């Protein structure tokens, strides 16, 4: 699946997007975050406070408990500050 990163999540990881192939035991958004966090220091920093990270699957907000099965695009970003 395609991963997108925005704002300081993007800056900390150092890229705006990439292809992810998590192992089959990674079932939810929260588990995907934990898996990414374990990759290297950049991801660890980006996701250090996982509770604040907002997520979207296929351009709609989802919670960390949401399953990732079937997701084509998953996005990670800080709380929104538009408007």
């Amino acid at each position, binding site marked *: 699946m395609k991963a*997108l990163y*925005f*704002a*300081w999540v993007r800056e900390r990881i150092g890229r705006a997007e990439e292809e992810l192939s998590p192992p089959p035991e990674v079932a939810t958004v929260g588990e995907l975050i934990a898996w990414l966090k374990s990759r290297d220091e950049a991801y660890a920093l980006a996701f250090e406070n996982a509770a604040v990270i907002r997520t*979207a699957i296929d*351009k*709609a*907000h989802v919670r960390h408990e949401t399953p990732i099965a079937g997701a084509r695009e998953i*996005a990670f*970003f*800080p*709380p*929104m*500050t*538009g*408007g």
Partner: protein
Amino acid sequence: MTPTIRIQSAPFDPGHEAALIEDGRRDIGAIVSFTGLCRDEDGTLAALELEHYPGMAEAEIARVAEEALARWPLSALTVIHRHGRILPGERIVLVITAARHRGDAFAAAEFLMDYLKTRAPFWKKEHRADGSVGDWVEAKAKDDAAAERWNK
């Protein structure tokens, strides 16, 4: 009724957008227009850089607009949100609601702004007047509380 939703880097003209809604209609009694502007009271801000999630920004605003249309009898609805570099004093966001009665137009406009603040995928980064890159603007608990009140 299909809401008008635009995400753009170009400036917009609130008066023009409202006139487009009014034009030729005799069934609108109230138009509420909200304009959000880039503020810099202490003169330390050079610009805001607004990052957004293309595609999701439009989709999420469309979902919020549908929610507003389901809650209030609106005659028309326009939401425009800019992205990119925005200077102090420039307009960032526009919400216009039209209805037969003013109460519906006011409530829907305020609801839309509260939801845009907390749900639309935009992020503001500060560029300081001294040339340095400042911080990402932090989300406010006040904005979450403002959105939360519509769930009561």
